[in-house]
């Protein structure tokens, strides 16, 4: 039915199967739209956020998703600037993932702010000292870059290629890829960092506050490093997942192994700096503002095990596994390690966003709990559903994995 749209030389499942796959996601999308509509029309009283838990599920997942989406800029940077051609086979997929993560995060942010119609004030009256200004500028700029990076992939569609002027356009865009990759890396560097800075600058929240290195708190750099560790793992994991779901080989194992190695190296560096940072924070930063650090881990649910899990179980362990070729060559270990990397980064974002707000500041404050409402969950599932649909469509009609044809023929 849609054969004429599918990339030449690859096999895609029949159209009805594709629709069957999309349908549940479409329904999730609808539910999500309804949740988001409620939040916009009735106000954020639809959520379980409150004055004390002013940031909730959305900010946590935004931070996580953007860290996962870092694969787009990191692979782009490695491929186009550092010429690591191993990554050519996943770059298109990385771009789509990046686009999904970033556009989804921005969409959720628009629901999250109380006055989306005034959001443009940030551009007109920016406060250059605010991490959020930095985030907003970089996110929107980088989203534009991602769209420009996505455009040539769209233009590669069999039917669109038929229009000669588009072909020329695509070719021209391709020549500019180096520029986009450069700009993307630059922007990403800043907003990944700023997202870390978002909490690191909170002087009033000593659990999150970190000393400044230059003009940025240390979390600025830790976020960049951890995002660079998570990005390749996310591409690795999604590629593997798509292979499983489509029952096809899409990339060579060397590529996946290489991604794992990248992740491992970045994670090692990250964990090293994270450990140093944590020690400084426990022994100096936090106590000097009147907050004994061990008090943070007084609560059973948020004991020191959280810190241990973040640094050792989901940090050191996968880093060591990924650094060893033996484990990388083994699919099972590779995938497990990637999952651990992502879990570690997600846990880090969770600790920084949710635990920071749950912990008391004033002596007579209580430790707070918060459970998102269904509207919050729905709004976020909107992003997930949108991501799956966009990725599925892209995978079906666009050449996301250049090696696929080659691998299919070699069968």
């Amino acid at each position, binding site marked *: 039915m849609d054969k004429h749209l599918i990339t030449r030389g690859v096999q895609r499942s029949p159209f009805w199967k594709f629709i069957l796959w999309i349908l549940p996601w479409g329904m999730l999308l609808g539910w999500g739209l309804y949740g988001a509509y409620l939040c916009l029309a009735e106000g954020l009283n639809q959520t379980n956020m409150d004055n004390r838990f002013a940031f909730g599920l959305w900010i946590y997942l935004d931070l996580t998703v953007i860290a996962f989406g870092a694969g787009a800029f990191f692979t782009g940077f490695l491929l186009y600037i550092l010429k690591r051609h191993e990554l050519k086979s996943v770059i298109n997929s990385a771009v789509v993932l990046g686009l999904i993560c970033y556009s989804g995060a921005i969409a959720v942010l628009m629901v999250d702010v109380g006055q989306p*119609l*005034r959001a443009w*004030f940030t551009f007109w009256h920016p406060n250059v000292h605010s991490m959020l200004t930095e985030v907003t500028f970089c996110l929107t700029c980088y989203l534009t870059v991602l769209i420009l990076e996505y455009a040539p992939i769209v233009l590669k569609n069999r039917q669109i290629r038929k229009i000669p002027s588009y072909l020329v356009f695509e070719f021209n865009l391709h020549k500019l890829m180096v520029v986009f990759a450069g700009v993307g890396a630059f922007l990403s560097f800043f907003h990944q960092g700023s997202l870390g800075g978002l909490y690191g600058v909170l002087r009033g929240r000593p659990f999150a506050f970190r000393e400044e290195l230059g003009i940025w708190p240390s979390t600025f750099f830790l976020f960049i490093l951890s995002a660079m560790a998570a990005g390749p793992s996310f591409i690795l994991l999604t590629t593997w997942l798509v292979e499983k779901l489509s029952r096809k080989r899409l990339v060579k194992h060397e590529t996946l192994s290489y991604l794992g190695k990248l992740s491992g190296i970045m994670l090692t560096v990250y964990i090293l700096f994270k450990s140093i940072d944590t020690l400084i924070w426990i022994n100096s930063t936090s106590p000097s503002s009147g907050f004994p650090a061990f008090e943070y881990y007084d609560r059973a649910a948020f004991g020191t095990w959280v810190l241990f899990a973040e640094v050792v179980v989901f940090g050191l362990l996968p880093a060591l596994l990924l650094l060893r070729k033996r484990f990388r060559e083994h699919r099972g270990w590779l995938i497990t390690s990637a999952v651990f990397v992502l879990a570690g980064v997600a846990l880090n974002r969770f600790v920084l966003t949710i635990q920071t707000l749950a912990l008391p500041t004033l002596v007579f404050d209580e430790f707070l709990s918060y459970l998102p409402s269904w509207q919050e969950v729905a709004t976020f599932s909107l992003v997930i559903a949108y991501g799956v649909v966009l990725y599925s469509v892209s995978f079906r009609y666009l050449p996301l994995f250049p090696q696929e044809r080659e691998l299919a023929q070699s069968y």
Partner: protein
Amino acid sequence: MPLTLTRRDILKFVGGSIAGIMVTPIPWKLLDDVSIWTQNGPWIPKVPRGALTTSFSTCALCPAGCGVQARCVNGIPYFLSGTRNHPVNNGTLCPSGVAAHHLAYHPLRLKTPVQVTRGNGTIEVRPVSLDDVLRKISVASGNSTGAKGSLALLDQRPGRTVSLFYRKQLARHDHGIYLVSPTDPILITQCLDEMAETPFGPVGYHLENVRTILSFAAPVLDGWGTPAQTSPMLRTRHSSEQNAVKVIQIDSRHSRSAQLADQWIPLKPKTEAALAFGIAHVIIRDGLYDKRVIGRRIPDFNIPGKHSYSDLIGRFTPDHTSELTGVSSDVIVSTAHSLVARGPSVAIGDGDSGGGPLGKEAEIAIWGLNILLGALESNGSIVQRREAPVPEGFSSKELSPVMGISAIPDHSIGLLLIDGSDPGDPLPWSLLERKLIPRQSLVVACSPTLTGLAQHAQYVVPTPAHLEALTDIPTIVSSATATFSISAPLLKRPEGMTDAIEIMAKVFETEGSMEDLLKQRTSAIFATRRGCVFKAGTGTTVPITELGSPDEFWTELTAGGMWTDDPIRSKPFFQFHFMGRAPDAYQRMLDAGEAVSPLDGPLTPEMLTVLPYGRRAEVGGAQLSPLMTKLYQESGLHRSSKVAVLNPATAKKFDLVHGEQGILATACGTQKVGIRVDAAVMPGVIEIAAGPEPIGQAGNEIVQEQNILELIDPDQALPWRAFRATLRKA
């Protein structure tokens, strides 16, 4: 040029338009205007614009009668503060008073007379005409002569001039009953009439002389006295000032006064009489009293061979008292000593409004303590005071007597009229209900809002809201002299509001107007040429003789002024027979002293003791601004009537968890409450607020108020300050 439009042409046209639009003001101006729309949209209320003025009146929310200064815009008050130098409040207001100008906008405000039907948890109202209501009353009134029962008028704010009017009319009625909520000041008056050789008259307090106050559950630092009396005491708390007033609060509850007092003595609920006897025991045992005073004042102090006061007191040794009250004998002894050492001292017994009165016997016990402490002597702080002069025709002979609820036989009232226009102390509906003739009685309430007892009436006639109505403020209980002030309207009353006096006048087939009545009263006061007048406009006080005419006096009073009587200089001689008069007095007092606290009660061990409480201005009806949600739901500073507060150990014992829901049950019903733990609360008790919740925004349905007082068992109700109930997980 051929006129064929291709798809590409249209696309180009659209492209051109988009490019063109970008260089017109459309997108940019719209972006700007839409943001302005989000700042000023029609859903955001507009602030009033207009002339600013200042007016004065008197707050009628509670019996204190604070002077109010209102900043108004377009004549409508928008910010209230206390009138400077006002003898009652000296520039201060309580939180209810600060927001009192909102009561006219209460979401449950009635616009027309209504018929009320109580459904399952909700209330339905049907507008009716005033004539309909009057017709119903007239039929019921006809019935309520003779066998069909009596006509009772419940006055929720006794002591006003209009109260005199009611009593006068009821006195003329064959089966008329003037009913009030039971309060300790009324009980004290009754006791004194029973015990004194010659009538003592109203009791006044001269707290300026006092260095130690022994408060028996009275909210002395939280609404019992006037702000002008309590603010100086509160300002010197925690200071090392020698002459600062020391407050010892005897209270089963960790009440606000208990929190603020210099010393809190928690005792088992309902054992105040025993503790008063116990302290008196130590004073007598250790010879800490002036023997001449006792000889003069208490004829039955020691009568050999007969029951005497010292006999009675003799039984309450510190150890025995300690057993009864749970207060350690050391504390009893040291309290007695410090009361004498740090004199002058006074004991005040006056249960808080929601908790209800301490009871007659406890008041007698406390009165005995005051005699021992010399509080009734010439330098003491308990004084006699006059009532504010009344117009001719309102002498006590011509008035119907004041009746408590317990004096009324069950199933005897055929027509119950409730004047709830100025709510005061509560009267649990369960007590009231059983006095009505089942299924044949009519209950009509006059109230500005559908709250409090009005929710139980069959018909409600709307009265003007606070600051719309003209009413007077009788003397507050803690005052040393008689006072009188008028709460004059600051707001125009809406159409359809009727003063309660007009309804009652129609019932009694007579004429009645609030303004005429109050003018008569002010003229009567003016005629004595006694006392002085506070002028709100200037903040000064002048002798009444400086005013030229009753009209001038009226003008001052309606502009936030206040009249204060001269103090009575000489103290006439008084004697009190503790055992005399009533033959069973000794036994009654002994029983009261030996009474077992509900905390030690014989009932099943899973029973807890409920201690209801509530502020006078708040519990009697919804005198709560919609904005009071700030104090209740939004900050937890005032606890909601849906929250039960327990000691953590008690909660643990009964498997109740802080923050969860529980079901509170007595033989009379169940209520859902939130559970809260507080380490300062006495183990074994539940503290729970009586009275309404503030309503910030009314929903589509009128919800029935949940009031803890509705769980009181009418069989063993009085006093209701502590009763037993079970609390389990919801």
